[in-house]
């Protein structure tokens, strides 16, 4: 196990270095820089040029990259070009809200997918199965911004059940229990969009995995021993069918912190995805790079986690 881990960590370091290089190159290739987004008749080009020099963005891309690497290696993520805020604090402040949104959505998605996937696998090719499958495809196909606007229209504007946007009711200044309830109400619509668009894929995976297991010999043996259908489904088929689902869970981890660009923008959720988009349009590369690197680290951790879980739940898998 230890050599495996060392090996994976070494691989990870190489991959991170490559990712940083590629994402910096892409950022540098985008036309324009942070100061070129600021055109004001009262600020002549010479002043913009001076500001570029102060930020160091007048230098060739490779010089900027090496400087960025040096700074990051010494633990300094730098300052946002657009706002002057320290990048670590700016990105750090977005982790909480993103994790809350994506984590809640992920938990709901997982539970829903396990339930619907198992139910439909137990009764394949029935009206229920076709209904869930149809809904799943609709969920995958409809773009999330449309789902989001539709939910806002119906549940906020027409019915008035949930707020349209934000993390909480800023004007009310609530605290304690009412504040928790208020925050939960703000979570409902964005989480629903993520579940509606994200559960579809997982339902299909669970369904086919469980269906595969139900055709196995051991299931027939269990049934012939007189094990009830419910127990067959839950204790045998679902448990074994979970193996491929674990992989999906592992690769979903980065999404939990990287956030969702569309949902965060539509619901003005103060998360990572919205910050990434804003920094790309502002050519604010210290911020964009930090988010990219965070996402890369999470992808590596996620796949490592999935591998470890594999070994834990399936005795046939051993890393040596």
């Amino acid at each position, binding site marked *: 196990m230890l050599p495996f881990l060392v090996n994976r960590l070494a691989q990870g370091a190489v991959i991170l270095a490559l990712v940083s290089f590629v994402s910096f190159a892409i950022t540098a290739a985008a036309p324009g820089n942070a100061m*070129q987004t600021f055109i004001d008749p009262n600020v002549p080009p010479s002043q913009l040029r001076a500001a570029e020099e102060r930020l160091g963005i007048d230098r060739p891309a490779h010089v900027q990259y090496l400087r960025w690497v040096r700074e990051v290696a010494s633990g300094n993520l730098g300052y946002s070009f657009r706002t002057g805020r320290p990048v670590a604090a700016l990105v750090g402040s977005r982790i909480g809200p993103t994790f809350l949104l994506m984590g809640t959505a992920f938990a709901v998605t997982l539970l829903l997918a396990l339930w619907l996937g198992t139910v439909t696998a137990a009764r394949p090719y029935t009206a229920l199965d076709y209904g869930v499958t149809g809904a799943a495809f609709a969920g995958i196909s409809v773009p999330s911004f449309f789902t989001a606007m539709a939910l806002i229209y119906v549940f906020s504007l027409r019915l008035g059940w949930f707020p349209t946007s934000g993390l909480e009711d800023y004007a009310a200044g609530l605290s304690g229990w009412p504040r928790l309830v208020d925050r939960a109400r703000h979570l409902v619509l964005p989480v629903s969009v993520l579940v509606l668009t994200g559960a579809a894929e997982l339902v299909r995976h669970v369904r086919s995995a469980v269906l595969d297991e139900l055709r196995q010999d051991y299931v027939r043996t269990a049934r012939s021993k007189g094990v009830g259908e419910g127990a067959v489904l839950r204790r045998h088929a679902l448990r074994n069918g979970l193996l491929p689902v674990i992989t999906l869970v592992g690769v979903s981890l980065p999404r939990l912190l990287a956030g969702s660009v569309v949902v965060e923008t539509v619901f003005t959720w103060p998360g990572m995805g919205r910050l990434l988009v804003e920094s790309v349009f502002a050519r604010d590369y210290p911020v964009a790079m930090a988010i990219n690197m965070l996402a890369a680290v999470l992808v590596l951790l996620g796949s490592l986690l999935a591998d470890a879980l594999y070994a834990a739940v399936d005795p046939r898998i051993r890393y040596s």
Partner: protein
Amino acid sequence: MRTRTLTRSLLITAAAAWLAVAGAQGQRACEAVGGTATIAQWSEPGNLNPLIFPTTYDENVQELVFARLIRPTETLSFEPDMAESWEVSDDARTLTFRLREGLTWHDGRPVTARDVAFTFTAMAHPEYPGGRFAEVSILEGAEAYNAGEADSVSGIRVIDDRTVSFTTVEPYAPFLPVIGGVFILPEHVYGAVDIASWQQDATNREPVGSGPFVFQQWRPGEFIELTAFDGYWEGRPCLDRLIVRFGDQNTMLAALLSGEVDAAPVPVDGASSVASHPDLELHVVDALSFQYIGTNLRNPMLADPAVRQAIALAVNRDAMVTGLLQGYGSKLDTIFPTNHWSYPQDVEPIPYDPEAARTLLDDAGWLQDGEYRSKDGRQLAFRLFVPTGNQVRERTAPVIQANLRQVGIRVDIEMMDFATLVTHLMPRDAQGTPRAVTVDDFDLFLLGFGVERDPNEYLSYLIPSDMPPNGFNFIGVDIPEVAELMLRGRVTLDQAEREAVYQQVGRLMRESLAWIPLYQAQELYGSNVRLSGFGPDVRGVNVNVANWSVR
């Protein structure tokens, strides 16, 4: 010394006097006192230090926290703000401001003339990182101080605790607008921070000013919270708290419709839903900005006045106003906003006349050759660069394309974000050094422009010496009479004479059509009936914020 109010009517002077009295007594006619209002804007401010590269979104919040010496009136003149009066010297080079008595900062310290001097001196500091030096470079000694050759700006003088004067190297008409555009900073807060690190410093995010509201907190990506300043010179605002939210335009519209925010800007598509909502009121405000088609005059086809004129005649601007703007706007016929004093009301209108456009092109030798026209084997074809971000403007691009096809001009639309468009308008060489514009950099582009405070802001866009890399004349306008008038406008102090100067520029630019003016959109805001007193006008959304109250 002779006193000159620079305001044209007695009415304004009277209004200012009334304000001064009201302020001294701290009286304010509030419909209700207390409560919290929430307003929204479409983008988050970058920072709240008014001297660091301010954008409109920054200034909308800064003007709640800070105050200026003087501020614009609805008729685009100036009235006293922190200053109770000002005087112009006989040689027209020195402006002396007298501060109101008893002004304080939000932290309770008194405001003095030294704070004013500190603010304007900072803009000229050799290590000042905020980009606004050019506004004060006309001050005597500013260049020397900026170059590190002097310890202070000799043209900025503190006479006593409440009196400060500014001396320019020559009579400079736009200097009053400059003063009217600078928020005054407290020296004891901002002076304690090394100016070179202003951009990164916490004062950037936690401003201290002397305006109507005190900064409380800023949660990035969410909101900024402000509370009423008891010591505001014009009297404490009616509201207790004001919350500024920022988010996507459609979401903020939804939040307005659902009652979560009390006031928000409204995109044209949302106007009818706001107007028909029982709890909402739609405010339609004339703005000082407009949209135009820019032409690269280095392109021989576009250098031909007949081609530019044909484009202007062929574009159906009425359809843009009635269709895309749903009537919330108007067309305009030259480069100044129609509601600004620089706009010549007698300017020759640009009609929609595709037939005349065809005749012009025929006469110029551009003959129909299949779907499009050509001359000497060259097709009459242009790229049209369209910056994203303004939905109405994006939708005008296909209208322009279809209109021009009808007269035989081919247009290929290229959409790009604003930063990318700038790399075409202000190009750089392979080493990243800014260079001159060539014929290949662009053909046609769409862009907006507006007067912030004074038409002198057009100078860099219209004089030949300011073509990139030196300035913003990307189009390549080189009309000696226009350049001469623009330079004269800077040193002409008489308002009537200035109006004549800029209006003549307007007529000449109508003739030239180097900028093909399209339309001037009105700004739309919605407010909940819960919020009273909300009354945006040409100066912006927060003009009378101290009088807002909630039920």
